[in-house]
């Protein structure tokens, strides 16, 4: 048995990384989603829209400033294996869906946190971009990462007299 493992060490290393990717990857993903939901709930009162026009706000604008949030999430061996198999059969690459979803939501959350720190009442003109880090991400024996960046214009309302913030 030991000899068999040594002779096929490549294969067992591969299985080990796939298992590690599945175990650690799903644990991290579960924790990340829990954190995302909690923080989304906490930041619910800070609206974010994609509109370019501030006219709908309906009140005076005190200040407008750029806010940015970005995150990089790594692929694991397991997700990559599923994606490789999908490359053969075609169809939705579901293993990457949760990865990109997490990256987008985390980026927006970070942007909202930045906006809240600035004391903004809302963020308009939200833009989202995604890029692969490591252009070799789809090549052999390469595990790439996905970057999501969210940016927008934070609108800070003028402080009204008697208003505390």
């Amino acid at each position: 048995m030991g000899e068999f493992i040594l002779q096929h060490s490549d294969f067992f290393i591969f299985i080990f990384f796939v298992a590690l990717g599945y175990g650690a990857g799903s644990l991290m993903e579960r924790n990340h989603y829990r954190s995302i939901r909690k923080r989304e709930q906490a930041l619910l009162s800070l609206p974010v829209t994609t509109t370019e026009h501030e006219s709908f706000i309906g009140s005076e604008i005190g200040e407008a400033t750029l806010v940015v949030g970005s995150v990089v999430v790594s692929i694991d061996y397991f997700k990559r294996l599923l994606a490789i198999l999908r490359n053969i059969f075609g169809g939705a690459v579901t293993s990457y869906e949760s990865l990109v979803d997490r990256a987008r939501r985390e980026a927006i959350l970070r942007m909202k946190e930045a906006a809240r720190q600035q004391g903004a009442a809302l963020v308009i003109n939200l833009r989202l971009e995604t890029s692969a880090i490591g252009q070799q991400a789809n090549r052999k024996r390469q595990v790439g990462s996905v970057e999501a960046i969210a940016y927008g214009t934070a609108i800070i309302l003028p402080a009204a007299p008697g208003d505390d913030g």
Partner: protein
Amino acid sequence: MQSKIPFIARSTDDTVNVSRTHPLAELFWMLGGLVVLCGIIFIALGIITDLVVARVPVKVERALRGIALDQYGGERHPALNEIAGNLLAQVPRDSPLHDYEINVYLMENEEINAVALPGGNIVVFTGLVAQVESENELAMVLAHEMGHFSHRDHLRGLGRGLGLAVIVSLLFGPDSSASDLVSGSLLSFQAHYSQDQEADADRYGLDLLVRSYGHAGGSIDFFERLAAQHPDRLPYLFASHPHPDARIAALKERIDSYGYPSQETIPLDSALYDVR
């Protein structure tokens, strides 16, 4: 007057952008599909190879002779060739074996093995000669290899191996872990196929031995000695050859059903004793 859009805070819906399929379920469906796909291609290639091989003239095969022999080497051995020549004289006239130029080479190697190479060369390892006690046993081994030529088995093996290599490297690239996995599992199918071929070659070898020597003495001695050395059957599950016990049983059955007699064996030629 401008219309004002009221803002209502709603939490984001989790479900739209992420599929609910369990990743393991997806993995097993796709892996299963892949295995079935490879299996179908492999079986189809095997059938095509078998059809083509029967139509490839021996002349074409002889072109490969030099290449295959270079990988083994060894010396052409007169005493071994004499045994092979005597066997060949008993082969029916219409057999494809007569189109081959049968040459037996002896190669320094401790492995207990003999191989039939494309074009009619047989390479016997010194390790095998060291295990053999009589001329009849050696003749059985040579007749077995001639059986492979008669059935064109080495060409089939070549064709299937080539087909397998092509599928696997097309799908996964020339050297990846996935290639190892797939070729490993398909090779176990190959092993069963090649065990059938070995059994066929054993039957051919036995018939030729009896035709040449007039009796079946010595046909199973060699396998009995091997079986005593390898009592464990497990490693033979994926081996190219059946376990010696299975070969002995098959040979005995044929000896009984054809009523082959058994007589004294002829001792080994002195030139072959020197090898040991």
